[in-house]
């Protein structure tokens, strides 16, 4: 696609997961569709094998009062007082790409964890868990399309 991409690059973030030996750098790229609305609020977070919340990687969108529209993340992470520490940025415009880089403990890979992305756009429908990417070594580099706002989402392991 030849659209002017201004990539929002998220700084590396420490995940609230105990460091078990070696860490690996994960880069998650989320490209949005041209859905014809204002900038999207996105929450990129991790759930464990039981579907329980494991940590927040990034929240795009500046106003906390709209976070309830990122419904799954908002509900699952409600108990995590530090869920926003150092992982927030601007909302992501239609057609643009959000790149999030994080150091994840090696033990999380191939252990049933999932990267989930919630999306919400003003005046449009909320889209909780729009994308769910299984965090497996084999799944790296495989793009998945979202239901409403996400053109494709994928992650790379380093």
């Amino acid at each position: 696609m030849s659209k002017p991409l201004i990539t929002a690059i998220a700084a590396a973030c420490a995940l609230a997961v105990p460091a078990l030996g070696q860490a690996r750098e994960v880069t998650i790229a989320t490209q949005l569709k041209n859905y014809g609305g204002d900038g999207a609020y996105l929450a990129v977070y991790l759930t464990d094998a039981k579907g329980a919340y494991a940590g927040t990687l990034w929240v795009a969108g500046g106003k906390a009062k709209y976070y309830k529209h990122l419904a799954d993340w908002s509900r699952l992470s409600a108990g995590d007082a530090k869920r926003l520490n150092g992982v927030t940025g601007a909302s992501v415009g239609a057609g643009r790409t959000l790149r999030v880089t994080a150091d994840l403990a090696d033990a999380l890979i191939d252990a049933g964890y999932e990267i989930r992305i919630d999306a919400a756009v003003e005046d449009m429908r909320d889209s909780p868990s729009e994308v769910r990417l299984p965090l497996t070594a084999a799944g790296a580099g495989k793009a998945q399309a979202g239901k409403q706002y996400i053109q494709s989402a994928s992650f790379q392991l380093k």
Partner: protein
Amino acid sequence: MNWKAVHRWLGLSLGTVALVLGLSGALLALDPVQEAWQAPTAPADLPVATLVQQVQQAMPGVEEIRRLPSGAVAAFGFDGDQAQARYVDATSGQLLGNYQPSSMPRWVKNLHRALLLGDGGRWGAAATALAMVLLSISGLVLLVRRMGGWRHVAGRVRGTLAQRLHVLAGRVVLALLLSSITALTMSASTLGLLELEAGPEPDVVSSASTGADLAPAQLPLLRDLGVGDLHRVNLPDAGDPTDTWQVATTRGQGWIDRHSGDTLAWQEATLAQRLDDWARVLHTGESAWPWAVVMGLAGLCVLLFWASGVLIWWQGRRNAVHIADNSRLQQAEVLIFVASEGGSTWGFAQALHAALVRAGRRVHSSALEHFQITPTAQQVFILAATHGDGQPPAHACHALERIAAQGGSGVPVTVLGFGDRQYPAFCAYAQAVEQALRAQGHASLLPLELIHQQSAQQFARWGEALAQALGQPLAIDYRPRLPATTALTLVERRDYPGQADRPTAILRFAWPRQPWFARLLGCGLGRFEAGDLVGIVPPGNAVARYYSLASGSADGFLEICVRQWPGGVCSAHLLGLKPGDSTQAFIRANPGFTLSGRPPSVLLIGAGTGVAPLAGFIRRNDERTPMHLYFGARDPATDYYFGSEIARWQAEQRVASVNTIFSRVPGGGYVQEILQRDAERLRKLLAAGAAVRVCGSRPMAQGVGEVLDALLAPLGLDVNALKAKGRYAEDLF
């Protein structure tokens, strides 16, 4: 408070931003209109449970159902992997067309609420809304003032085309005021000044159960809720057994257990939420498309306001009097303070100022509200016009208090009044100023002089007296500032040659219609009505003479009745015109005299050529208001002006009764006598609210006034009381 300055400067600055908001708002108003014919309105009493059940059948994976502000229903779900949003026919549950939140590109809304500038822009838009509130209020004050009180606000608007457009558009000011106030409410909630959240969302889950979900009809909250009160209902996620129903209504939000049907939590809507809901409905018109149309038109009117306002400001600047060599207040030896409504008194101030400067004085001129006596001042002059019924010009409304607060001093303060003897309160304001000054113990160089109708001759005489009092020659060169004139071509004249000494004629000129843009710029002759005045500037002469018009621009021509005045330059010039010849002219409105409002009947009283404007009223009486003409002249054979037309108009019922009297025929008399004769009928008409227009000579008007005073006395009324109400007006010469 100087409403005019507030209105002007806010309008020129933030009004320009308001223009952007108004136009984008007008575009956004199309949405509710378009939405209204996309889908039918859901019946308000239909239970939400029934609606959900029907939609579930038509759209199996439905996740959310919304009742849109327009009353239509939209359902959201998935068709396979494809997100789906469809309008729904609430009564049948049938899916209709695709739902889209807005047909406008997104930037229109962002322009409207934030000027495309993000959060900073939202503050800018809010400031503009506040400016619109102030503009609306100041505009309303000025409108009422201009129209002469609330009762006349709906009356006919006069002035240049730009002024008329501005005032006409001004009648939507209440819609704009409402729009701005609701915009401020909405801004307050978006900007976080008004807390809309009822509290954190409750952490609730459906009870653990392996049983099947309850049907919507088994959920009491949905069963008892009418669609009319629904905002939104979210169905529980099929894949998550702990998920709940969530329903938002006009009264609040509830969460329902999918297995037990219990209401797990309820959050009552806060006052702030209700307020915000109302503001949104009123501002956007989203729940009633005709209201959206009204708001959209109000938005468009901002363009009209802005453009006409800028023109008015520009024309005002162009016509403003410029005072050359205006010394600083603290250094001036002579101070001139001016109170002027229309600006013409400034022309006299300018002449006086220039003459004193030429005589070697340092002079400072400013408006009367700045009145003060400085240590360097040796002479102070006040040039004061009177507005309306003895009021000061609007800008000087607090000047008397200021004069009283200054205290006395040894510096003589001389007052020169300007006014019009036609009005009962001739120069009343100048007299009030004079009294206030003398009460303070100020001396005066010259006694109070009152100048009638901006008479240049009278002003020149006062100047000579002033020069003598100052002991210094003064060359006051006053040139009346005439409006731009337009050439009028005579198309027809009807002569009344019977009076050899004083020839008289009715002259009809073509109305040179201007293209609309010329009229917008204030060029050429504006529109006029019978009773307005046409100023004629005879060749080689700087002073205009005014004639009452016997026609309106609706008639397509200008008609005046001219009688040779002994030694009159202008009447000689006019009576010398032949068809095809032209003369220079301009229009001067005569708002108190032309007919406005809808009086139950009108008494037209005139003598001689004074019948002209009265004939004009009758000619345009298309509504057939009962008009009664009382007309006095000398001889039906020589000076019954408009006689044949009046007979025709009577046949057309444009005039209900014609009563004439002639002084030079046997058994004749003056117009007062036929009024006296008709006293009973006149009293009845006047008691019922008849309006009176008198046109003719001053002695005649005085006689008429006396007769009517006597006739009105039993009603507890007199001519002055009727004048105060605008029911009685004179046009005298």
